[in-house]
């Protein structure tokens, strides 16, 4: 567990980060890729370790073309859906300097509606 500091702001910061541990994060990095995994560890340089990570890439021109062709062939209407390219990596560490965006998944509890 992380060591707390006497400084109340810092204690709150640690608490905030602690609450995010084991939650699923989406990290967008500078070269356009996205990493989705469970947060395991971070430090003051925002280096992030994710577990069970999948890497996502924007589809390429060729991917879009192929999806459009198949869409047409299949006689489907509406917009063409092109999936992002995805592959499994496992345990990764993303250096803070490359992170452009951090997103967390939120859910609302059913019982809060009761």
């Amino acid at each position: 567990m992380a060591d707390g500091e006497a400084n109340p702001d810092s204690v709150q910061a640690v608490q905030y980060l602690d609450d995010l541990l084991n939650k699923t994060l989406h990290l967008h990095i500078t070269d356009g890729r996205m990493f989705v995994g469970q947060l395991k560890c971070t430090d003051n340089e925002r280096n992030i370790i994710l577990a069970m990570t999948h890497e996502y890439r924007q589809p390429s021109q060729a991917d879009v073309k192929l999806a459009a062709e198949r869409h047409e062939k299949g006689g489907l209407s509406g917009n063409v859906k092109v999936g992002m390219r995805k592959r499994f990596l496992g345990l990764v560490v993303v250096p803070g300097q490359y992170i452009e965006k951090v997103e967390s998944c939120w859910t609302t509890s059913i019982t809060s509606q009761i």
Partner: protein
Amino acid sequence: MPEDDLADEASHLTIDGDNPNGDDIGFAAKRLAHEARKTLSSGGGSRGIRDVTQEFAAAAKLLQPGQLVKDEYFTLFEAVGALEIMDPKMDSGYVPPGDTLEPDFDVCKGLPAEQVLWIMDELLRLTAVWHDGYPLSQTIFTSLHVDRLLSPDNRPPYHLFYGDTALLVMTTEQRLVHIVLRAYCIALVKSCALVLHTIQSQNFYEEEDFVTHLFGRELLPSTGANDAVKLIDEAVKFLDGADVDKVMRTALLERLQFARTYISLLVSDSADWNTLAAMGRSAETHKLAQPILEAFSDKVQRQLATSTPPRPMIIISWDEALERWKAICADIVEADRLTCFDVCQSPHALHRAIWAFAYREPQPNTFARAYLQTILFASEQITEGMAFFDLMLTDMRDLVLAGDVLVDPHSFLVEIPSDPRHKCSRIVETFMDKAFDEYMNLYRMVCQNRCRIRRTFTQSVAIFDSLETEAMRTDAELDGITPGIVLAGEDGPGNVTLTPLTSWVKYYKLQTMAWTIQLGFETDIYLPHELSMMYWYLMVFARRERKLLEHIERFLAARQKTFVSSRDARQDDEAAASQEWLAVLHKQADFTALLSSALWQVSELLMTLCILQPAKRDYAQEQLLYDVRMKSYLGIAHDPIPTLEEYKSATQSDRSIEDTCNNINGTIADAKSCLAYMKKTTPEQGKYIGTGEQWKREIKQLETTCVAVAVQTSQLRRVADKHGKLLGAPRDQSLKGAVEVSIPPAGSRYHDWWVVPQIREKKT
């Protein structure tokens, strides 16, 4: 809250922490529950994604440098295995600036025959490398054509062009790619699937022997091996009528034929791998191929699911690749020969055959060893008419109970419950059930890599020892029903019985103990100064084995006397064969005891004379070092091994160097006469049917080893004489500085199981 219930349930997945492993399991369960709780907390309802970039950055900045916020169960030890993103050495998805994500090569474009030929040969080369154990990501998957066929975006029937943009009117060059090359690639990929299936159905060690990882790809699941063969046939038909140069056509047809034969061999049970080996003629036409390096790239790794850093493509020469292919075919053919019907009739002959296979040069690869295991273990029997049960029973019969009604197959068919044969058979069956796994391991484990053979046998020793307890109990029970022959004790007063099952288990226990030491020499796990002790223990184990064999032989002789001459000759034949074989085993045990005695004396002499010394270790304690080295044998309850003290008191450091050298020479002479005996043994007597060549070769290697020991001994004697130390007690002498000794590594010994120190006089 349902999700909380789930988390609660997960936390109840604990196991009682009573057993020694309970701590690990309890810990893992706790960790699982903790992570589940955290991930699932307040689940259900709607979900979405929230941008927390600013908050996260702000929070992180408030941490101290070096301060970590981490999950309590996440260890930094695990963190070391994390791939660092954007580091080109670790991140397989990193695209250097100026580079493109995908290689810039159109797999659909037509290619001239020379280039298609090169690609086919390159795939052949890469398949050979894959057989050696390199992952697909560094071998076959680097082919861009294969990559396209296997792409997750591709659909059956797996064409090189996506969508259904079929190229209706194709040029010859396009056809060479889409018909010929495609068929070839599909056949090779399906062959990989078949090889993987064989390997994964048997025992092997991932990463050590072979890498089975598919990197998130599937190997054309909708296409079967037969479909692949059909595609090849269509390609052949196309080539026959195509507008292609005649020489090129022959060359391409050869490659297609190779792929077709290869996959056909993998599918059928009884096929001749020699036909594949004969296709090494392809080597000549390889010169005509024109390289097209762009058709292969390690950039494919950017899209493969991999938890490892990027790895280079593997390079071996074309000739080396052909050698590998020839070796694979030769190994398969030999595996078939070594497990032929005749060999399988005798458990010991089969055993020898498997050892002979393991010791082929070069060592058979993972697929060949899996193939051998498939022949032996895939069905319910070793060979036609020889079930595993029969094999084990024959083993017992050959070794300890030849001619005895106890292990006569007919005894097991008796159904009358009051018949002693029926009662005994059930008891014997129960015992065999218990011994079955470890007994079959004697065959299966020899099909693993060398280090693993030693390691698994080390564990077998303990299992055989506990089986011995079971055997003793069973023998007593059997003796109560059908009392066995009683003879006067061999040493000391009182009578003894054969205790057949105990003797049988003991034999394999002692044999396994000896093998672990021999394999230890081969895999270089002993330091030079440990040779003396290990040879002494090998001598002890071999002597015990010899004594056990004498015990068995005595009772066999006594049993033979009880045979009624009017009964069928089968009993007599069985007993006679067993007698001859036991004599051979006796000589072998004798030889091992003698040679290890000689080498013990040599090594000990070198130590006493301070020529061979352990490194100075101030904190090392003799007993602790001994305990660590002999760990696997210390737990033996029946006939425990001699202690460190007993080993030390066996020392010969009182004897003069001259006397020791004379003794060594005498021992070697005796050892040589054992070899002379074994040389005259027929395959039936020695139960080495099918491995005659290996038998002769090994005897020759052992003869050379004996000579080498004598030579080194005389070397030592000469130097000692020169320094006038021949007659005094070695304990008071030292030849340090006058002699240097080197230990030949495995691979450069006359016989890898015997380390003969090389003694050289130091020129001052």
